[in-house]
Every structure is written in structure tokens, then in C-alpha cells.
């Protein structure tokens, strides 16, 4: 087992050679934490770590950090998602220390959806840093024990650092080089965009292996079950950077409406089973959006249950 450097459970699972399973919870648009705790409760036995989204799709919600603290309080291993859209380097570093002070050991560094998608298109955006520079920042704070200013951090943040990758974004030819940049920035794990076009993902993984990047970073394949043919069509047409092949839409369409959600689960499980065999896939990030109750079934039927017990 490779030596772990942080207190992260996710890091321990990955470095012990197990395929990791992560999932995510979107915080509520409310100050009531019950919702996030319920979601955590639903999936806690079936996943190793739980991402908490940061005002996803630019819709204002309870903050990721507070939601992570609630999950941490339940004994879980949260992954703090942090976007650079809303915070400058002062706020980012401050929140990183804040999260670390609560024992949050994972961070996923993201750019964030543009605010024009959300509830406040009139908002000013920040983008003081980009996602790669945030990865560099967390690594610098942790490994050098310094702020970006060079000032010393007496108790550096103890965080396992991740980033996202979208093999389906354009231009395709720089998607492997872009991953290489994230790895060079210091990313230790990667969670990918939802994978529906498995052939294209496997082609991307070929490029990743050709450069040996799979040996430098743990790649968790992103899986989101489709609930209906309508959702599949919406993702295909309206979500930039999402690649839903026509065959998948045909398959969903060919099923009775009442059975479409079951078919979506079947597709997710088949995808995991196929991708489990792909060299360099270190685990799965199961994003069942507002459908967390299905995560246990997906994990169990994919043969990823029970989860390994790690101290």
C-alpha cells in the first residue's frame, strides 16, 4: 500500500488498492440541515466518501462547507467541493483552513458553472484563480505549510486534493493533456463528468494510460443513472459538455414509461461493470441527482458492496 499523507478515508481506500466508491449530496435551499443528514444516512454504508456540491448550477444553497461539517459529525468522510466562481484567493484559503479545522480531509477543486445558469445571473463572478491554480494552492498550503503570500501556516490543512475531468468536453485532443496539467498541478484524485459514451471514455483512458497518468492519479469514473428518456434528451441537448449517445436514448425510449427509471439503473450498473475492467479506473463517483435512495442498489448490483473497512 502506498503511504497515505492525509487523514482522508478516500485516500486510504484508494491507496490500499480498492476501487473506491464516492457519491454526492446537493445541499438544500434552506437552513435546515435535516435534508443533508438524511441523504448522508441513505448512502453512508454503500460509499466511502461523499461529495458535497458547492452551489451547483449556480443556484444559491446551504454552503458546501457547513453541509460537510454535518456529514463529518455523522462520522462520514465528506469531500468539500469548492468552486472558484464565488471566492477570491483570500476566501478560498480561509475556507480551506475552516474546513480542515473540522477535520474535513478531501477537497475537489472546480471552476463552477457560470452564474448565468443559476438563480443570480446578475451576480459578479470572481475567478481570481482557476481550478488548476486552486489545486496548486491547496497542495502548497498542505505540503509547504504556507499561504500563497508565503506566510507560514502553523497547522497546515490536511487534505487529499482532487479535481474534475470531462473527457467529453471539446476539443477532445487536449482532454488528456488537460488531465496531465491537473496532475502536474498536484491533483491526487479525479472525478469525471457523467459517462454515457463509454467508447469515447475508453478512448480517453487509452490516451491517459499512454502517458502513464493513471499511475499518477486515481481516476474515479462518473456515473449518473438516467431517470427517463426525457432526462436523457435534456442532457444530450441542453447540458454543455455532456455526451449522451443516440443509442442510449433509443434504449430508454424502447422501454415502457413506468420502467424507464429501472432501465436507467440497469444502464448505470452495466456501465460500472464494463468500466471496472478498464485499466486505470480507480473507482466510481455515483451521482444520483436527487435520487440518492438508488445509490445502495446501484453499488450492490455492480458488485461494489460491501465496502472495505479501513481504519
Amino acid at each position, binding site marked *: 500500500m502506498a503511504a497515505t499523507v492525509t487523514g482522508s478515508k478516500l485516500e486510504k481506500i484508494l491507496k490500499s488498492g480498492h476501487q473506491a466508491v464516492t457519491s454526492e449530496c446537493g445541499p438544500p435551499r434552506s437552513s435546515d440541515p435535516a435534508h443533508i443528514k438524511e441523504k448522508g444516512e441513505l448512502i453512508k454504508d454503500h460509499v466511502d466518501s461523499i461529495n458535497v456540491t458547492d452551489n451547483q448550477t449556480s443556484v444559491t444553497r446551504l454552503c458546501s462547507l457547513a453541509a460537510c461539517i454535518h456529514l463529518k459529525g455523522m462520522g462520514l468522510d465528506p469531500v468539500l467541493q469548492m468552486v472558484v*466562481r464565488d471566492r477570491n*484567493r483570500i476566501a478560498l484559503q480561509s475556507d480551506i483552513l475552516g474546513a480542515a479545522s473540522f477535520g474535513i480531509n478531501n477537497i475537489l477543486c472546480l*471552476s*463552477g*458553472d*457560470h452564474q*448565468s*445558469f443559476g438563480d443570480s445571473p446578475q451576480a459578479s*463572478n470572481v*475567478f*481570481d*484563480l*482557476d*481550478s*488548476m*491554480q486552486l489545486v*496548486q*494552492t491547496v497542495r502548497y498550503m498542505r505540503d509547504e505549510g504556507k499561504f*500563497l503570500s508565503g506566510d507560514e501556516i502553523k497547522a497546515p490543512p490536511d487534505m487529499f486534493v482532487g479535481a*474534475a*475531468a*470531462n473527457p*467529453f*468536453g*471539446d*476539443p477532445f*485532443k*487536449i482532454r488528456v*493533456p*488537460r488531465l*496531465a*496539467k491537473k496532475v*502536474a*498541478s498536484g491533483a491526487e484524485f479525479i472525478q469525471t*463528468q457523467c459517462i454515457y459514451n463509454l467508447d469515447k471514455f475508453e478512448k480517453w483512458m487509452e490516451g491517459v494510460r499512454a502517458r502513464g497518468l493513471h499511475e499518477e492519479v486515481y481516476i474515479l469514473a462518473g456515473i449518473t443513472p438516467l431517470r427517463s428518456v426525457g432526462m436523457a434528451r435534456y442532457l444530450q441537448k441542453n447540458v*454543455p*459538455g455532456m455526451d449522451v449517445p443516440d443509442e442510449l436514448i433509443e434504449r430508454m425510449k424502447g422501454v415502457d414509461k413506468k420502467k424507464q427509471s429501472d432501465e436507467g439503473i440497469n444502464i448505470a450498473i452495466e456501465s460500472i461493470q464494463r468500466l471496472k475492467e478498464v485499466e486505470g479506473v480507480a473507482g466510481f463517483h455515483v451521482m444520483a441527482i436527487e435520487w440518492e435512495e438508488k445509490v445502495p442498489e446501484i453499488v450492490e448490483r455492480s458488485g461494489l458492496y460491501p465496502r472495505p473497512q479501513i481504519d
Partner: protein
Amino acid sequence: MIVGEQKPFEEIWEMVKGHKQLTVFGCNTCVAVCHQGGNKEAGIIAAQLRMRATQDDVDIEIIDSGIERQCEHEFFEKTEELVKKSEAILSLACGIGVQFMAEKYEIPIYPGLNTTFLGDVPETGLYTEKCQACGDCVLGVTGGVCPVSRCAKRLFNGPCGGSTTGKCEISKETECAWQLVVDRLEALGRLDTYEKIMPLKDWSKDRSGGPRSFKLEDF
């Protein structure tokens, strides 16, 4: 050049209608190129305002005039007399010209334009943003495509995951700046430089550092 767009007519009317006298002042450089604030447009807006005043039975004398540039003293010499006679001015310059006049004269100076961006004219009648005057140009390493003004997230290590068939995630009409960067680096035979991680930007040279100025010591 500086690009501006005329404010909605109603907004202009609400600003100026309380005066007895108004001079509409064009600026015949940048904002004339985009047909929004030149001396010709000053004549048109003055005519529209006169019509509106007549319709609403408002007593207001409206004169139109203009100069080459509202951001330098020397261009004002010929118009000093007219300004002295004016109760208020509607300036069709960019925000720079409006402020320059507001510092120069103790009468109300109203903006007739919204100053929108620094841009070019790729074809007649089309103006596109190309620069944000960030104070620390990176065009030398991005193949001549500006990520600060042309990427909606001003990413220095793009593109983000939302880039689709050359378009930005915010709109199918908007080109992805990083697609352009990659295409251009490839055309220049420099795609290998894409993997160099761009360092954290020093935004103190941007407006974040406060209002900027520089002085030529020889003058």
C-alpha cells in the same frame, strides 16, 4: 477601441427633461465608429429629444454639437462658449469623456451611452470584445487570444468542461476562447506549450488594485 451603446431613449429623457436648456455633445472618435455617440448621432438624439419635448409640452431648448475627443483638454477650445451657455450636457462619449467633462465643468453632465467594452470591428456593424485592460497581457502565450476578456470564466488554464463544438457553455452564439487558443497554438506549431501551467494572475494590475494611471516623466 472603446465601444458603447446608446441608452434607452426613455432613460435619457428622464435624466434631462427637467432642464430648460440642454446641449447634446457627440464624441467623434471611438463611439462614432460604432455609430452610437458621434456628432451625427448627437444630431439625431437632439432631434428625438426635441420631438419628445414638443409631444409632452416641455419647455427645453436643445442644441447639438460635438468634438473630436471628449477626453483631452485641447479639443474643447472651440466649444468653450457653447458649454458656458449650457445648463446641462448630454454626453455621447464613453464613460471617460463623461467624467472628463464632469471634472471640467460645474454643470450636470449626463451619459447618453452605456460604455460596453474594448473591442474590434470584425465586420461592418459588428463589434466584439477583445480586451479588459487587465494590465498584464498574456497574449504572447495564448496564441493571441485573450482568456481574460473572451473566456466567460476568464480561465488561464482552460477550456472548462463546458466547451462544446467550439462554443462556450453560456451560449451557443459565444465562441469558446480556449478552443480558439488551442486551434491557434496548433496552427503555430506550438501546441506543446499548452501544457505549461499558467501561474496565478496578479490582479493588482487590474482594476482590483484601484484606479490606475501612469505619467511620462519627460513631459
